[in-house]
């Protein structure tokens, strides 16, 4: 137990927590937007892979890092648009379409990678985002190195949560989004387009998922390799439920999950790690997530029209 306390008291632990949380935050916000509008986006896992690859490939081909982020977002929006067309105007099953998008986006990314780099055996590297100190805040003892010595994309992730929350609760657009996931008939009766709102939400949300994927290649690691997203998309779907479809609580969930993840890596180095197989440590964040989900989702207010296609003029 004292070993855990020692880990928790190091600044590098908390810096790692925010780093691990960042891609989850982007993708969770993306999924939250989709689900608030009434569309479950199971394409998230594949869209993150596509974003990770597209962002990395753009930078590898000579684009700037922010250009890479933009390309990753565009790749996410492309697959999001495909998802949106199939699920919103065509009203197809959101489960089937989502899983299909994940398979398609993942294999497209792998295929494109092999087409572009047929010969390489070890993944080539790019120069990723570097930590940026924030004047004043970064010099604070403990808190500075823990929280304010991150790459720009991490700051951007937290900023995204703020924007999503403000839009959702303080603007007419957010009001319409929350209404369209609860009762699309109410939105249509007020003269707004259910189709446009839902498609827009899925496309923008998927763009954020793409950025979440790009965080892995442009900020956390410096190359693209297979299996690198490794289920993070599925975790984000759980985080949306954990957050009860509220941005602030979803952020809390992402940070909590990242903390468990950072903790288990460090516990593998402790005396306990010599006794217990490392796979047990790998399971910890997932087991704790399941427990947290069970406790939190009991009184969750799931959007009433989630996964219900809306057909205008149907009785």
């Amino acid at each position: 137990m004292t070993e855990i306390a020692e880990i928790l008291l190091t600044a590098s632990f908390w810096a790692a927590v925010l780093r691990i949380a960042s891609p989850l935050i982007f993708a969770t916000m993306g999924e939250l937007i989709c689900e608030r509008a009434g569309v479950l986006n199971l394409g998230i896992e594949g869209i993150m892979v596509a974003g990770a690859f597209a962002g990395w490939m753009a930078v590898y081909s000579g684009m700037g890092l922010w250009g890479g982020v933009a390309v990753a977002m565009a790749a996410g929006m492309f697959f999001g648009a495909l998802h949106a067309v199939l699920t919103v105007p065509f009203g197809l099953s959101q489960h089937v379409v989502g899983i299909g998008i994940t398979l398609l986006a993942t294999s497209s990314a792998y295929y494109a990678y092999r087409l572009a780099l047929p010969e390489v055996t070890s993944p080539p590297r790019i120069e990723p985002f570097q930590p940026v100190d924030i004047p004043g805040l970064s010099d604070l003892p403990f808190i500075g190195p823990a929280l304010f010595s991150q790459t720009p994309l991490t700051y951007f992730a937290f900023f995204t949560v703020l924007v999503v929350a403000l839009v959702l609760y303080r603007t007419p657009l957010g009001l319409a989004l929350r209404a369209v996931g609860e009762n699309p008939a109410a939105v249509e009766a007020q003269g707004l387009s259910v189709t446009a709102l839902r498609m827009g939400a899925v496309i923008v949300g998927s763009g954020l998922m793409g950025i979440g994927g790009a965080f892995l290649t442009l900020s956390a690691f410096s190359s693209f390799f297979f299996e690198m997203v490794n289920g993070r998309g599925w975790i984000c779907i759980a985080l949306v439920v954990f957050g009860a479809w509220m941005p602030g609580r979803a952020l809390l969930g992402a940070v909590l999950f990242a903390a468990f993840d950072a903790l288990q890596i460090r516990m593998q180095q402790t005396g306990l790690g010599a006794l217990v197989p490392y796979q047990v440590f790998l399971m910890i964040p997932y087991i704790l997530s399941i427990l947290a989900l069970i406790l939190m989702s009991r009184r969750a207010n799931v959007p009433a029209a989630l996964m219900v296609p809306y057909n205008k003029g149907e009785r």
Partner: protein
Amino acid sequence: MPSEAPAQGGPVLRLSGITKRFGALVANDGIDLDLARGEVLALLGENGAGKTTLMNILFGHYSADSGAVEVMGKTLPPGQPGAALRAGVGMVHQHFTLADNLTALDNILLGTEPLWKPGLGRGAARARVVALSRDFGLAVDPGAMVADLSVGERQRVEILKALYRDARILILDEPTAVLTPQETDALFETLRRAVALGLSVIFISHKLHEVMAIASRVLVLRHGRLVGAVTTTDTDRHKLAEMMVGAEITPPAPSRATPGAPLLVLDRVSGPGLRDVSLSLRAGQITGLAGVSGNGQGALADLLSGLATPTAGRFEIAGNPPGAWSPRAAIAAGIGRIPEDRHRTGTIADFSLTENAILETYADAPVSRSGWMDWTHARQRAEGIIAQYDVRCPGPQTRIRLLSGGNMQKLILGRVLGENPRVILANQPVRGLDIGAVTYVQNQLLAARDAGAAILLISEDLDEILTLSDVIHVISAGRLSPAFPRGTMKPADLGQWMAGHGFGDHGNEEDRKTGQGDKGQGGSNAA
């Protein structure tokens, strides 16, 4: 903005030659309609006559196959609710279009501000909503979550949505179906104020006395066609009913009941949704249960159907407490069940008439023997019901979803009455049926009563309760009123009980939830 005055004298709204088909069904057939400024026009017709379809075309939910909609002399583009709203048309839908996860105010604001505006301007909006509530007598707390509002309050939010957008034409689709008589009076007061202020109202209903009370002109629809246009001063309820049905009407005239022994007794029974309910269903008597929907009717029906068990109190069938209480036990005890929702719980849509006819007896001889179905017997039983109860269908192998509501209900009726039940639970037995089918079902229930069955009739239609019941109870917030014998209560008296007054004890919490009656009256007195 739609607030400019229409050309004096001309109609504010004109529908010309509206035709709409759904597959082979002609829902609207060349309908013309003019609406003048400051009038209440009633659109009368049976279920399926095409009233709602017509209004959905006017509002842009559907596009007409042919015909035009003109508001203040300008043609509306088809299929665009936004255009109808901007032209000053406001619609209060029968099934409310409110988002439960938002406040009343946010529901009213939805879609009224440009989407890309940074702020919502809730402060100014709230002031405007409060002013409108006062002017039109529509008491609602703008900050309340819609999920917490009663049905009457939700309807007021719907009306406020239209008024907030400066609607000049209000369309109300079956607005009184969910209201107590007091709430209906308050609604009519609101509508009278609206027309006094120059608005025009289209009131859709199949309740004749309400149409006579509020409308100046009545258009009657039948099978998608306009079959009559009269002013209310030139007609009466009887004539309207005949126009609506297209045939002579003979409402059921129940003879005096001869009540026998109590067959089913509840003594201070509590359970999920029920509190201290005492009820005695006597042989040869129809006991009516009045109340605003959602006040425990479902809980009581579940209890009698065997779907719920009491947690406290005495429950006896024919003098004995039932053993393990379950739907099968209820059937075995001779309780016949006509469920509230014939589509959801009464039938299985993709099963044939034969299969639906034996849903409750499939496991018993002679329909099944030593674990094997006897389909010949099952089909004979279905054919028997079809012949005896005049179920119009191609044959017993037809999937029941293809039948009209009335024919579906006749099959259920035959299924229930064929077992000669001692107790009949009739939950909304005529909801959504044509007048012809209504009369048929009600006469069958009366015949079962005269044959000695104890019947509990649950209905939201007070007229039906008052016509058929030998004694009446009112249910409110899970509590049951005393039994009122036939003829002792007027609708307004029952309305007081329906609004939660008279139960005396038991705190005020429930009065707040269900007692919109007093709030509505408060609003209408504030003029």
